[in-house]
């Protein structure tokens, strides 16, 4: 499998993972920023958990849940849906690990939106969904974009959870990070080094983009 191939696959999976968690992530971020509800602290903690747990442990939990005899896997198996040790498991691991960054960053953005705008929009007849889509989201867009970029960058670097739940099947589940590990382990140092450069470039570009978006928004406001 070529280095280009593994890079392209990883970028595609990370983008898919980001797209997958974006709607729910934004909703939860908005909810956490606005609501005072029971179980809020619990939800906050649960969302952030993958950030501080060992990724390998998160991966094992996913494996137990989605394995053919796991709680969720058992329900999916009759439908012919196989998750573990396929590319779907890669996307899932990336999504779970990127989720906390997405929610935390987007939430900070939503918290900065002046509630007066939302209130006025609602007195103008806008439903809560319309208020969110036409007022809250556009006003928080820089943070939301930065949140998506961070989630994507985290997904690119995912290693521990991916190894547990998806393994390292070349061309099928092997990601950039996993490939670096296996190249280094098997003495293909030049290939490993090349991929290190690639991932450094991607990470740098993502962070620069995220910082650029937030700085530009700061200047405009």
């Amino acid at each position, binding site marked *: 499998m070529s280095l280009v191939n593994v890079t392209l696959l990883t970028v595609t999976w990370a983008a898919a993972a980001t797209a997958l968690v974006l709607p729910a992530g934004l909703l939860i971020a908005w909810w956490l920023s606005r609501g005072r509800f029971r179980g809020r602290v619990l939800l906050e903690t649960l969302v952030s958990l993958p950030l501080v747990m060992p990724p390998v442990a998160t991966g094992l939990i996913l494996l137990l849940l989605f394995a053919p005899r796991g709680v969720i896997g058992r329900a999916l198996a009759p439908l012919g849906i196989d998750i573990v040790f396929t590319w779907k498991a890669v996307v899932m691991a990336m999504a779970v690990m990127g989720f906390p960054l997405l929610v935390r960053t987007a939430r900070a953005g939503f918290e900065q939106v*002046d509630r007066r*705008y939302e*209130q*006025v*929009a609602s*007195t*103008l007849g*806008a439903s809560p969904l319309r208020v969110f889509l036409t007022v809250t989201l556009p*006003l928080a867009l820089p943070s939301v974009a930065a949140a998506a970029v961070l989630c994507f960058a985290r997904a690119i670097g995912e290693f521990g959870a991916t190894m547990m739940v998806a393994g390292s099947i070349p061309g099928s589940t092997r990601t950039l990070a996993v490939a670096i590990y296996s190249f280094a382990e098997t003495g293909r140092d030049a290939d490993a080094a090349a991929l290190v450069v690639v991932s450094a470039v991607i990470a740098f570009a993502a962070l620069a983009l995220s910082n650029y978006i937030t700085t530009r928004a700061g200047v405009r406001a």
Partner: protein
Amino acid sequence: MITLDFTLQQGSFVLELHEQLNGGITALFGPSGSGKTTALDAIAGLRRPRVGRIAVGDHVLFDRSHGVDLPPHGRHVGYVPQDTALFPHMNVRRNVLYGRRAGQKLSLDVVVRMLEVGQLLDRRVPDLSGGERQRVALARALMSAPDLLLLDEPLAAVDVERRRRILPYLLRVRDVLGVPVIYVSHDRAEIDQLADRVVVLDEGRVVPHVRGA
């Protein structure tokens, strides 16, 4: 007929209103902290009274004993807050059209002509002056065809000269459109010039009004 009959508690502050209004322009007058803005928030559905009833004509907005509490977007109450809260990410035209209701009688043309905001439609919100913002915010609220219009110190951020120029617009809202207005102010002169009726608030309670005092 507008019924404002409610008690709202906020920490140790209690706001109590028991008023029936007949349309026209009603001024809510009182020192800061007397509960004027809180009253507007309650009517618009942004704060929930503890008990009572709020109705505009037959349209019951809030009635604790019958379990009615319409969300703000179901109340048809236009609200222009003190800082106007024009949406900064939309131009003037999109602001004005934001709340337009399908099938309403009031056309953009009429509102634009009445408030003279035609030349402003393609401008960006940050480029508007204080007086222009007030007119645009008023136009935006009117385009949602409200049954009642709430104005929170609409002239507070405007200098005396502009004030004189905006007052006629407010009178037109009453005389041309017949929309009842509740108008918050702490400026006596302004109120004497505009209001058909004055409700004086002090520390959350209505006190007798002495005209021209």
